[in-house]
């Protein structure tokens, strides 16, 4: 058994890249569409220790790669920011070729790239055209959504939900972990002192939304739209 090696020969791989979004007039339904967060936000409590917001219909791409120096350079030019090679770190750039982008380390050969939904195909295309060698880039926008949770009790709520240590000394802003969340999973990124983003799978979104409501109950949950 040997470790995974990178292909020596660099060329564009024959893969299928297609735009998956319809014209703008067709409205997408996010995984929490049925929960009608808009009216919850309007009619629900406006004060509380935990705030919740679904960053819906974002563009999310999974990049799998063991990037060579050359590939890293290309990726940097496409993303406008270097891939975070340190485990459990993330980077963001506001002025990348595809606008605001966040790149999160998932594993030594995996990153999650988050941008606005409309830009995903553009980035996929530029990768396909520019990045040589072995890699895979997969659009998972439809299968994923992002919960933004914040507030003075957000850490308490998260402590009920995940076994990772969220203390600021262990989990600073910018850190990202994939972990257990209740009986499902989530990728958790601390985006500010008291603000986290949870990347969750579509089919589990309703369960996790129920869970978060339940875990936030004693602190008061404010939903934003």
């Amino acid at each position, binding site marked *: 058994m040997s470790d995974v090696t990178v292909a020596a020969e660099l060329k564009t791989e024959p893969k299928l890249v297609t735009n998956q979004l319809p*014209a703008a007039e067709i409205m997408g339904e996010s995984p929490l569409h049925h929960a009608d967060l808009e009216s919850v936000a309007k009619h629900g409590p406006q004060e509380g220790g935990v705030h919740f917001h679904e960053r819906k219909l974002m563009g999310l791409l999974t990049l799998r790669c063991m990037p060579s120096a050359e590939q890293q350079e290309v990726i940097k030019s496409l993303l406008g920011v270097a891939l975070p090679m340190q485990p459990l770190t993330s980077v963001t750039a506001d002025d990348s070729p595809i606008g605001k982008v966040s790149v999160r380390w998932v594993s030594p050969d995996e990153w999650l790239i988050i941008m606005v939904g409309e830009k995903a195909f553009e980035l996929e295309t530029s990768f396909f055209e520019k990045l040589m060698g072995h890699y*895979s880039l997969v659009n998972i926008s*439809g299968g994923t959504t992002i919960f933004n949770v914040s507030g003075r009790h957000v850490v308490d709520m998260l402590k009920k939900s995940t076994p990772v240590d969220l203390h600021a000394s262990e989990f600073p802003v910018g850190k990202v972990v994939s972990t257990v969340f209740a009986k499902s999973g989530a990728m958790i990124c601390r985006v500010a002192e008291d603000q986290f983003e949870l990347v969750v799978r579509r*089919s589990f979104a309703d369960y996790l939304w129920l869970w978060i409501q339940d875990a936030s109950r004693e602190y008061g949950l404010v939903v934003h739209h």
Partner: protein
Amino acid sequence: MTQDLSKQSNRLQEGGRIDRAKPLTFTYNGKQYKGFEGDTLASALLANGVDIVGRSFKYSRPRGIVAAGAEEPNAIMQIGSTEATQIPNVRATQQSLYAGLVASSTNGWPNVDMDLMGLVGKVGGKMMPPGFYYKTFMYPKSMWETYESYIRKAAGLGRAPKENDPDIYDKMNQHCDLLIVGAGPAGLAAALSAARAGARVIIADEQSEFGGSLLSSKETLNGKPAAEWVAEVVQELSGCADVLMLPNSQVNGYHDHNFLTIQQHCTDQFADRAPNGQIAQRLHRVRAKWVILATGAHERPLVYGNNDIPGCMVANAVSTYINRYGVVPGKDLVLMTSNDNAYRAALDWHDAGRRVVAIVDSRKNPKGTFVEAARERGISILVGSGVIEAHGNKRVTGVSIAPLNEAGDAVVGPIVKMAADTVATSGGWSPVIHLSCHTGARPVWNDDILGFTPGKTYQKQLTAGAINGAFSTAAALSEGFSAASDALSHLGLAKPERVLPEAEQIQESKAMALFHLPHTKPTSKAPKQFVDYQNDVTAAGIELACREGFESIEHVKRYTAMGFGTDQGKLGNINGMAIAAKILKQTIPQTGTTIFRPNYTPVTFGAIAGRDCGELFDPKRYTAMHAWHVERGAKFEDVGQWKRAWYYPKGNETMQEALNRECLATRESVGILDASTLGKIDIQGKDAREFLGRVYTNAWAKLPVGKCRYGLMCGEDGMVFDDGVTSCLAENHFLMTTTTGGAARVLSWLEIYHQTEWPELEVYFTSVTDHWSTMTISGPNSRKLLEKLTDYDVSKDNMAFMDWKSMTVAGVPARVFRISFTGELSFEINVQANYGMHVWKALFEQGEEFNLTPYGTETMHILRAEKGFIIAGQDTDGSVHPFDLGMSWAVSMQKPFSFIGKRGMQREDCVRENRKQLVGLKTIDPNVVLPEGAQGVFDPKAPIPMPMVGHVTSSYWSANLNRSVAMGFVKGGLDKMGQKVFYPLADGRVIEAEICSPVFLDPKGERQHV
């Protein structure tokens, strides 16, 4: 201050940590009593002079409160003011008193004070030595269940509620540098030191207030009452952001790698139902870098005749009730001790203004600070003597005292009887080593302190204070500080300054090893001398067990049930071991060691379950079209965690009517299935094709771009575990589908082989199950329907069977796969899931003219069964290979790489004759549907056990064929076409069926090729 303390006959006018300004009314056994805020239920009962709190399990003897904490064996109560809020088996010594508390004793009939079972216990008790039930109730054989029903009548302490629990319990995951268990002097000293050094600290204590032993003694620290120092420390700790203080919280389990569980009582200390939706209890799941056990010690009572009569108590409990609760639990005290420490009980009793009849000390020449203090007060001390028996029935009325020999194991002089209503005893202290045992550390006996101390541990664990035998406050403080210093240096944190309060200097003379007091009669004939109160284990019982050959302490415990109560032998285990050691003529360490398992004290099931119950028990996974299915009135089937539409009844349709309608509509026009739950894996890389060839049984080398292929996946044993269609999206790009239930397993399967066996293959796998919504339109009109929604040419010529194409459907970019699980012309439309509902609804808008009919998993099953298609998991069970399934066409033995499963399916047993093979089954009576799971036989007249030849895996009523269809395994079935199989059923029917091809409909496959 004078309060109306009427009826609280044992309450002192002052003193204690109770708030006499806050009287509380509570109910015990139907009668109302008063206590104060700060009381436990036990202290309030004692204040009111309640003697009997229960009846013993086996002999039904009256029992009173013995202790003041977690070690209490007798005061086990039923609590709850309503049916739904009943709590069984609450230890009264650990339950805070609150207004309106309703408690009752858990056994005794008709009640604990006048218990008729007690008579039975007295008469029958003689016939109930340990293990008596192994020796009787055997004859006649048929009578055991009758005997047992009587035994069961006596079972149990409290009762479960009959209604569901209205409370909620939750959990929190905690991480810390240092978890300190116990907030007595050692724990507080440790916490203070660690907090000052900036460590992340959790300190938990089972009591409602921090302070431990300091709360129940009259000791001073820095010349002031110790409680003042406690208050200062608590104040300082509560100002530290990284210190979590958990009173009312039992650390109940110490698991591997410093994982501990803490049960925090949030509201159940104040109410039997959490007010206003609050959390009743919270379970903290703690991962600690270091742990300091500062769990203290429990005082051991002595074992003597009738030592269970109410009024017999542990010495320290007497002090605790006086000093902490302002309750003197009696009038006339006899203290029996083998050590100095217990003298404090007599001093406290005396200082509370009640009479100390005598201190009976087994030692010849006690001297020390407390002994002198007793002498100063003029308390009579009988040295070299022992209380050998208590007298009384429902309360102690007196004691027999006798001079003892040097070893304390024989009576050597005349008996003196004295009147008293309370006997406090002390045989020394047993360190609370329970938690240290949980991770497998074996305790070691320490002769100096006459107790077990924690053994070698593999955990990052330190111990401080009485758990190590450092019983004095000064020593505990010092050990607490030292343990914290050690932990901090391990953690790389700065060592704190040593700032400890000045404790009193107390001289104590050496304690004597005394556990079991002799009697003038041999143990077997003496009045019962209880070791384990809750399970009625006596010294005579232990001796009998040893005599019968149960010599290992584990045998003794199991034979007598010692230590198996809800107190887990906190009071009795060491005494029991000492008694066994003596009769076996061994030392205590030779006899064995004492082992404790989680929990330290019992933990509410609800708290362990946390929020993972009811609606949140397990995730419900939904597809993007779920809301539509709900609106359409679908019934759902649980498939793994998914909620899948099962069928869509209309009006008053029965299930079968709905299925018939769905099946016919699909074959006659067009039906639609939400197939989004199928697992989907995006596979990219130049070696993707090679990889597929290794994990599937068939060939993938030549699958062209734009084509789909069905594949079987086997384990290394050659047995089928999943199947699905994989499509070639581009030369180096594939989309694999898996079964709904197998998705996660297949992805792991691919990853483990890639990461550990074939890392040289350039390929990546990414799950896209949730990314695509999948809707299958199936039936002769499916093309016409699709044409209405797309401009793309979906004609047979442009899009052949097993082709896939990119196109726009209802305005949404889609990948459409012309594959079929029904045998009909079918298109599987995949769109980005955020647009699944849009396309689904558009299909229905356009599908009206074709009577587009939604169908669920059941109709899908029927339609595929008509075609003889298998479902992995239903038609396979991990014991069948592709050849057993008659699917040799899906295996390519010629591939260069020995694919997974190839070698396994060629083992001797896999290629033998007469294996069970999957075949079609046609019932002779077409109207009879074989039950799935029916077992076939060739000879229905054979005697039981009948040789079985295989079971029915799939069986349905086919509305399309107007007859039943079935598949099942039959031994050698593929060679037995046309032969009969018989299915004897539980209801006596025998169904006859003929072996046939599993393809019941359209054997040439013409319908899907149009």
